[in-house]
């Protein structure tokens, strides 16, 4: 199978500093990743169009957060981005989705139409749009071909939205990308909700998630989430995550039934 695997660039933003884009891309290419998602706050965002040519990596998306006061910044990213046609958009205007979030989407959708950009709404624990349910509601409201959803296993787990199969069914018409992370519920984790770890760690079963996506015929991109709390040697964590991902996909091909859980709860 060997699906192309991406990694979000957060993993390179550590407490000791941020690795330069060249080092990020060299590490990703050497460890076998096909591409990266760049954060909109990256100081090297303008180099994005060179990434494919210089390092052979795809830039799958740019990750962007909307908060009140960032209207012009967000609009400018949509207007100016080159070398990438997908923006993963988190909405953080309040404890729930706010009118300002809706105004923001209304403002950028015409730019998306004109410039051929897709928005993948990014549910994010502790933000305004936290759950897949809220993202689906926005997609239903706008019903726009340029507006979809990125399913992020970490945030689904951290918000304890649960009902994986039902949530994937609900998200399916709008599903563009999938992000993965090892994680466990913990007050020591991000937002005091859950840890962000390499894919071979944590209590969330990503093999089951992969199986559920495979059964639905998901053909989109997988990305791995990373965060400074993972700590340690970034390169080693990249290796561990891709190693675990390849193990899971090989196993899934050989034993698809293993990923189907019973209906029993304990």
């Amino acid at each position, binding site marked *: 199978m060997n699906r192309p695997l991406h990694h979000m660039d957060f993993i390179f933003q550590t407490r000791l500093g941020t690795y330069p884009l060249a080092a990020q891309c060299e590490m990703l290419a050497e460890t076998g990743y096909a591409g990266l998602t760049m954060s909109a706050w990256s100081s090297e965002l303008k180099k994005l169009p060179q990434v494919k040519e210089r390092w052979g990596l795809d830039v799958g998306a740019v990750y962007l957060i909307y908060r009140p006061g960032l209207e012009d910044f967000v609009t400018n990213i949509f207007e100016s981005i080159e070398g990438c046609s997908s923006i993963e958009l988190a909405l953080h205007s309040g404890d729930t989705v706010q009118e300002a979030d809706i105004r923001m989407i209304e403002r950028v959708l015409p730019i998306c139409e004109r410039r051929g950009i897709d928005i993948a709404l990014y549910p994010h624990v502790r933000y305004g749009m936290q759950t897949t349910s809220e993202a689906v509601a926005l997609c239903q409201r706008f019903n726009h071909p340029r507006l979809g959803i990125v399913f992020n296993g970490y945030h689904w787990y951290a918000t304890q939205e*649960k009902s*994986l199969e039902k949530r994937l069914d609900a998200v399916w018409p709008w599903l563009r990308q999938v992000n993965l992370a*090892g994680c*466990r519920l*913990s*007050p*020591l984790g991000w937002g005091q909700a859950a840890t962000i770890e390499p*894919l*071979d*760690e*944590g*209590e*969330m*079963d*990503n*093999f*089951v998630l992969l199986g559920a996506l495979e059964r639905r015929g998901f053909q989109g991109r997988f990305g791995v989430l990373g965060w400074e709390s993972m700590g340690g040697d970034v390169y080693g964590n990249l290796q561990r995550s891709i190693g*675990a991902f390849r*193990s*899971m996909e090989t*196993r899934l091909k050989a*034993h698809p*039934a*293993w990923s*189907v*859980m*019973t*209906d*029993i*709860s*304990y």
Partner: protein
Amino acid sequence: MSYPVHALDSFFYSSMGVYTFQSQCEMLAELGYDGITVSAWGGKPLTDLSLLSSVKARHGLDVSALYLVLHEGRNDLLLRDIVERVEGVQLVELAVQTSLNGANGIKRFIESLLPIIERRGLRLALYPHLHHVTQTTSEVLQLCQHFLHPQLGMSFNGYHWYAGQEGNLEERLVAIKPWLMQVVLSGSALSPLGWGSVATMEPPDRGELDNFALIAALERIGYKGSIGILGWDYGGDIYLKLQRCLYTVHAMQERLLAHPGWVPNQHLR
């Protein structure tokens, strides 16, 4: 010596669901485990117990034990009925979680179970469990000494011994040696974020409990049984965690064989 290694089926439970029993057995067999412990909990197993007798033929795995949880005065009949009927397993592990009638009630239950154990050629291992009525090896040992029955013994669970902070590892193992029927290991660190707000359960390559020293201590008392790997809700991608656990336990045994002197001088607290 090389101990057979089995996994507890609770490894396959997570907040995302429960793996089918067939998947559990297939994974363990592929990874090279020798057996599986199947839980019937308080009498409502998540696994169809009628499958146990075909596990060896179908998957080449031993059913290392059937695990039961007694709520004395509440589920006595249910558990007795399971022990009366279960096939495909020789060892029954029994944890005593709650009791309506105290020590005498628990003794009466064990007394009522022993004739069934005898008649059916089974063995009964009492299982010390943190936050249960019988928590420590000392408490369980007293019950074994009370009955002095050749088919009644106990399990030693490294996690519960460590989490219960019973301490005195060597002394405890020597004391329970005549009754020791089964061993279960886990990585663990004392932590309010762990199970029961007491201690984490982790693969044996993590945590602060030195499982290498524990295996060395088991070797010294001449333990010959199987070593079980505890799992509970920390699994993530279960297969990779099981792989790590088996690798670690095998690596510790090989290291012990090559370097029997690599043992801490001081007894574990």
